[in-house]
């Protein structure tokens, strides 16, 4: 299995505070990797460094594109990251609230539209071709994840679980190879979580994705992830397959410790 994403000793400091210290990740193609840890461990910061929201204070992020070429994407713009095939969702859902489900998803196809705004505005043939292609794909996608019936609904009017799902679908629509999910199960009831679990597996195989996710819901994590990284106070305190993590002393301490405080 060949690696798709590598981080070499990336560190993020805000003023004096070190949010993430010497993080060494390696994610291989077609894996589902989870990043866990107590609150404030720096998980989301790690995500933000990978997706170019923050530029790491030091260290590099290396991505292997579909032609197997390694490229340094440290501090690359978020939009560029999306273009090379890394999509992400957000901890606090960031949908285009006032737009319809359909619009939300088809917007994601914009980065595959090659024609310039003039030909788009004048609806010239080559643009129309691209456009209808996009429409077909979106329809297929929405039918697949059974959101098609509510395509005309405003995103904000969807039930919570569906909103989470829509955000993932929107990310999928950018046709990524690596998908980063930031707490996809947050705030879901057991049933929704069930669905989510299978949904993630499903899309991984369907679209042949690599998935890297932050998640608190241990049930979910243990069930689907191939490997797990554990962060605490910005340090990587453990990594390995679920069974190893489950009975890793430091991890337990980290969590129990937090539990006591809480």
């Amino acid at each position, binding site marked *: 299995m060949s690696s798709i994403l590598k981080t070499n000793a990336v560190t993020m400091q*805000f003023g004096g505070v070190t949010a993430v210290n010497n993080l060494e990740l390696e994610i291989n193609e077609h894996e589902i990797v989870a990043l866990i840890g107590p609150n404030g461990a720096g998980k*989301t910061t790690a995500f933000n460094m990978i997706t170019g*929201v923050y530029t790491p204070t030091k260290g590099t992020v290396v991505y292997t594109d579909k032609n197997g070429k390694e490229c340094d994407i440290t501090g690359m713009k978020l939009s560029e990251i999306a273009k090379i095939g890394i999509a992400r969702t*957000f901890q606090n859902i960031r949908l285009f609230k006032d737009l319809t489900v359909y619009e939300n998803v088809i917007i994601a196809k914009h980065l595959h539209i090659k024609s310039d705004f003039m030909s788009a505005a004048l609806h010239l043939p080559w643009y129309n071709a691209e456009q209808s292609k996009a429409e077909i794909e979106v329809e297929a996608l929405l039918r697949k994840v059974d959101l098609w019936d509510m395509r005309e609904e405003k995103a904000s009017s969807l039930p919570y679980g569906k909103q989470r799902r829509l955000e993932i679908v929107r990310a999928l629509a950018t046709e990524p190879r690596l998908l980063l999910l930031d707490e996809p199960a947050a705030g879901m009831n057991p049933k929704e979580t069930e669905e989510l679990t299978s949904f993630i597996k499903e899309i991984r195989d369907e679209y042949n994705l690599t998935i890297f996710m932050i998640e608190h819901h241990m049930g979910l994590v243990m069930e689907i992830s191939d490997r797990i990284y554990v962060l605490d106070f910005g340090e990587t305190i453990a990594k390995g397959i679920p069974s190893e993590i489950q009975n890793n002393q430091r991890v337990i301490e980290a969590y129990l410790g937090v539990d006591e405080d809480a």
Partner: protein
Amino acid sequence: MEFFQGLLNMSGASFAQHMVNGISLGSLYALIAIGYTMVYGILLMINFAHGDIVMMACYFAYFGITIFHVPWYFTFIGVIVATALLGAVIERMAYRPLRDAPKNSVLISAIGASFLLENLANYLFSGRPMSFPDIPLLSQNIAVGSIKIQAISLVIPVITVISLLVLLHIVNHTKTGMAMRAVSKDYEIARVMGINIDNIISMTFIIGSALAAIGAIMWGIRYPGITPYLGVMPGLKCFIAAVIGGIGNIKGAVLGGFILGLGEILIVAFFPELSGYRDAFAFIVLIIILFYRPTGILGERTTEKV
């Protein structure tokens, strides 16, 4: 080189005079900018109407002294009170209903308020300029060697510093001030903590407008022509001053005011050819500052949470 003629043949005397002019103008800008920055600091919105509140205050003073013959010191107190009330009313009418509305709506409402005040003044007092009552004590001239200065120009910086200190005291050492700072940080939390947001914000507007009134009086004595559009340019420039210094930061407003005032004077002093472009100067500085330090000279940088 002809262009630098201004630089070359400037005598010490005129340079000193220019500096004096600059400082007196700067302190005037600073005085009005404080009001701006304070409202922004709490509400995080531009009170576009601030300049027009200044204008209204000038009219109040005019009616007090010229029409009703109230002695000026009483009038000024009255003006400050009246203007403070006006500010509160504007807040109540134009801003409170939009407390939870998107920022742009508030901005539009602010523009609307300023536009309304101007047209109202135009309608009520007609476009004909009125002369701000002359107060000999303050408008007399004082000569220091070859340097001429108006008494008021000496008073203004003092007033500015006083208001600065008073304001700093209010904000940092009083209960209201603490509440204000709480509100400016996050008013949901403040609300939860049992602070009455509406009162605090009204308070902010009252203080801000009172400052505007003081500024207006100083402005009127220095430049005694009152028209409905009097407030527009000072309004814009003082806002710019506030932004330059770091909006929301009271000391910054003063700093910005002086930078702007001195800058405007000196640009004309050194490059007389550019006198026609003088008003553009403020905006150019604004844009440069926003480009290199979006939060102004003394404003602290902020990063967005994702």
